């Protein structure tokens, strides 16, 4: 150890009794000058001339009082943190073991470093003004309390007018939700925002200004901070960065200035650096123990901050949750959507062709032909357009898209009715039957297809994925089945298939509206009335879908149970080998193969049916194929 107890005093507060005992133990209670903070402050004038080094263990306020005296009399400082001062320990890179901390604190060779003062107050870690949710939220509380604080900080968050004046006299007027001042770049989450090289002895102050476009973009940026995913070339899009030896900060209204977690002043605030004024012991790896050239030039990076004409607009209202995208910025998308809403001959031809193809494929029971028809179908485009029209209350876009959809539906129904009437045989295939039981699962498919459709539409580079969306949601085949139902004059057939189509239509519209909103294509949901009707339609559709979903679950459970369920009818053992429940004319028809060794009479079969029926909530019609075991 270079020097320990010679011209050194150990100053402690009442909270650091444990640390004091550890220090006394370390030095075997010998030759150690120990004072409380109050005693030290009282007797400082008499004793400072006899000192070279002060070791302090005290609250942040007391620590700063002692530091001021040390700086005034050019004394070096060692710090022994309290248990709660984890950030301070991290900032000074102190070792974890208390004995090693004591050894380091009592060394007299602390390197000189700058001292940051804001309105005359010492800033150790950071000073903050305004709101910086999460970054500046207290960490010494429970997660639940922290979440509550974060929500409170976000509630009503808005950009305020700020003015920053650097040492060279450069004046910057902007709007921000808050800013952070720091001199060293370690020890706090906020330090991760600074990607420029820095030093504790470069005579410079760093100022970080947060001016997010939306709460979402702020959260995205925070996640980058946590992941340390900030590109070194430039500050994140929500931030501005100023580095100068002196800064004056003004705000449009007085704001509290919080220094190292305590509110000690308010704006306007003047921050300055006392160059190499503080000699403090730090552990290995601390900023100013690292070598390397650092810039001492003023640095101003405010490209992402609102200035000039944008300033007045930015200060007007609260920060929205979603980013707002201007029409200019997404001009291409709007042009594409307006084109999609335009009814033209190509649409008519494709709609008729795809429906004819789908209808034939359905009669053929050919999955591949039906998929081909899905790919040809042009219905997805006006549905996505109508979603945007509703979101932005663009009556023109909305009306044109609606007209196009209605014409498409009419064409599809008409085409499939015609084919059905022309077909001499009208078989009911599995491809058709598969579209007669829409359920909540179909609504789920429609919603995710709507999200995918809107997302794909807004990203030119992935437009080819729209084909996959079209296959997933399949708009034309249900319409074709509905048309077949009309052609067969079967209201059940028509109703169920049209319910499936309506599910897809409404699900896609609702999901696309929300997706466009999240992607920032509208500052707010403007067409509330029309969207209200769509949501109402969705709610009403949910009822039959829910009921059908229950039926499907019951049916699947029932069909699966055959693997292990048997029947003893009049002392005859019956094994159900294979069974399928189908909907026919509104009835549940069970088609099954049953195995039996003994001859089954009509009484046996009635008994068997009774037992089957007791396990199924709906009335069953049974068609059984009996296979005898020989």
């Amino acid at each position, binding site marked *: 150890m270079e020097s320990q107890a010679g011209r050194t005093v150990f100053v402690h507060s009442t909270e650091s009794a444990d640390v004091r005992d550890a220090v006394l133990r370390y030095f075997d209670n010998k030759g150690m000058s120990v004072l409380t903070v109050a005693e030290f402050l009282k007797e400082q004038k008499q004793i400072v001339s006899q000192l070279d080094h002060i070791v302090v263990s005290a609250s942040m306020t007391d620590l700063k009082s002692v530091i001021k005296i040390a700086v005034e009399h050019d004394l070096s400082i060692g710090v022994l943190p309290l248990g709660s001062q984890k950030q301070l320990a991290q900032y000074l890179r102190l070792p974890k073991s208390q004995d090693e901390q004591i050894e380091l604190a009592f060394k007299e060779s602390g390197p000189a470093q700058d001292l940051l003062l804001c309105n005359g107050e010492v800033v150790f870690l950071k000073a903050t003004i305004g709101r910086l949710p999460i970054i500046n939220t207290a960490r010494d509380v429970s997660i639940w309390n922290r979440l509550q604080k974060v929500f409170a900080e976000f509630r009503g968050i808005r950009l305020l007018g700020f003015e920053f004046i650097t040492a060279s006299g450069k004046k910057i007027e902007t709007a921000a939700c808050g800013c952070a001042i720091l001199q060293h770049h370690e020890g706090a989450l906020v330090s991760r925002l600074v990607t420029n090289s820095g030093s504790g002895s470069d005579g410079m102050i760093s100022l970080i200004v947060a001016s997010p476009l939306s709460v979402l973009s702020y959260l995205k940026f925070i996640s980058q901070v946590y992941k340390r995913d900030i590109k070194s070339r430039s500050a994140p899009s929500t931030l501005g960065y100023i580095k100068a030896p002196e800064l004056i900060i003004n705000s449009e209204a007085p704001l509290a200035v919080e220094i190292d977690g305590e509110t000690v002043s308010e704006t306007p605030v003047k921050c300055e650096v006392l160059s190499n004024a503080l000699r403090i012991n730090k552990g290995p790896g601390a900023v100013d123990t690292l070598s390397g050239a650092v810039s001492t030039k003023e640095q101003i990076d405010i490209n992402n901050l609102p200035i000039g004409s944008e300033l007045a607009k930015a200060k007007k209202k609260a920060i929205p949750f979603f980013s707002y995208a201007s029409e200019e910025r997404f001009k291409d998308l709007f042009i594409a959507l307006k084109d999609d809403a335009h009814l033209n001959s190509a649409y008519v031809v494709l709609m008729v062709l795809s429906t004819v193809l789908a209808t034939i494929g359905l009669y053929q029971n050919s999955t591949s032909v039906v998929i081909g028809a899905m790919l040809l179908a042009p219905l997805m485009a006006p549905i996505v357009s109508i979603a945007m029209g509703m979101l932005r209350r663009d009556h023109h876009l909305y009306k044109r898209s609606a007209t196009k959809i209605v014409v498409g539906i009419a064409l599809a129904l008409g085409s499939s009715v015609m084919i059905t009437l022309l077909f001499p045989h009208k078989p009911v295939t599995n491809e058709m039957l598969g579209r007669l039981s829409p359920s909540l699962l179909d609504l789920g498919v429609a919603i995710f297809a709507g999200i995918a459709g809107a997302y794909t539409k807004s990203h030119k580079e992935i437009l080819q994925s729209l084909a996959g969306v079209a296959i997933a949601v399949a708009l034309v085949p249900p319409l074709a089945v509905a048309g077949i139902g009309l052609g067969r004059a079967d209201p059940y057939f028509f109703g169920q298939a049209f319910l499936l189509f309506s599910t897809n239509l409404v699900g896609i519209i609702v999901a696309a509206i929300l997706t466009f909103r999240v992607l920032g294509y509208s500052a707010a949901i403007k067409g*509330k*009335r029309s969207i*209200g009707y769509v*949501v*109402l339609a969705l*709610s*009403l559709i*949910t*009822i039959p879908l*829910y009921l059908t979903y229950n039926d499907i679950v019951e049916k699947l459970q029932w069909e*699966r*149970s055959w*693997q*292990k*369920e*048997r*029947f*003893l009818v009049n*002392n*005859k*053992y019956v*094994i159900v080998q294979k069974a399928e429940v189908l909907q026919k004319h509104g009835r549940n028809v069970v088609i099954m193969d049953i*195995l039996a*060794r*003994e001859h089954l009479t009509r009484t046996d079969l009635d008994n068997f049916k009774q*037992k089957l029926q*007791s*396990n199924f909530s709906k009335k069953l019609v049974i068609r059984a194929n009996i296979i005898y*075991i020989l």
Partner: protein
Amino acid sequence: MMPLIIYIIISILFFIQGCEKSLPVTPSTTVVKIGFIGTRAGLDVADGEDTLEGVLAAQALRPTLPNGDRVEVVTEDGGDGPEVTKAALSKLVNEIGVAALLVGVDSDKLLQVAEYAESLHTPIIALIATHPGVVSDSVYISQLCFDDATQGSVAALFVRDELLIKRAAVFTTANNQYSAYLGEFFQKRFIATGGELTGSHDVADISEALLQELQNKNTEILYLPIASQYLLKIMSLLEAIEWSPKIMTSDGLLASVMKKYPEKLDYLEGVFATELFSDSGEFIRYKSLGKQANYYFGERHYSDISTLNGLGIEGYAIVVNAIAKCQPSVEPDCVNNKIRSTNNFEGIMSKISIDEQGKAIRPVYVNTIEDGHLKSVVKVY
């Protein structure tokens, strides 16, 4: 517009959820007593203790009738002989005035006192007795288990049609009516469906030589409706002669061996049995009553419901259901009629009906032991 939409959505949610929540029952001061008789000592102690445990669990879960009347379970030891059982029956009916009786004694014991029980004109649910004779000439006794005719048929037909086995031998305990009846019914159904019987013996005669003889006759399966100690004896003899035919046994036997001789579980690997319940595997789910009871047992006993516990729970629930339908009266004939018209009552794992003759109609499970665990093979309705 938005409040209207929210209102509609909430209405829909209410519609979907339904309004099944019942109003809380206001307790009354009236007490309805149900009697329980079980063997509380001797070899069959588990029959009485475990079924009573189930009855008391069900009472804890449903302590009152829907009208608020409190249900009290009064227990009496059925003893080892018919006289003790008769005395217990008499005390519960004549002195205590129970509205119905739950009887946790086996077929043999119940058959011995059936005539006397009948004379008491009080509805009785036989919790574990499976012999058809228990209800054949009775007006007041009903069974909760499927009867041995059903069980024997399922065993024979499962062997024939699922395992596709042609040759079987049967061992029974000749002086036990339950065992003898099951063995006889199995043989009858097995032969009727084209099966070949290679031997039918009293388990008291079991020997290596006898088993060797059956092996020489190409016997593929042994049907063993016998007590657990005999089953283990046969298994050890089979091991000695290095013969491993398939084994089929009757209700409660697997559970009994698992409980009494857990160290011998290896012997039971691959053994089939007809059972009242099964594991809670993929296709069998506990019904509402079963879920509550299973939770109750898990909380208090750190165990699942055993077969005997399950029968106690179901018996209590059926009796309480029948009494509730007769309220405010607890007139015996009414309760008895309601018991005998139980239709699709949600039991622990399946629906239970009791017909006018007092016979229970419920599924038979065929279980096996696989990797030391009870596993369901089929459920026969």
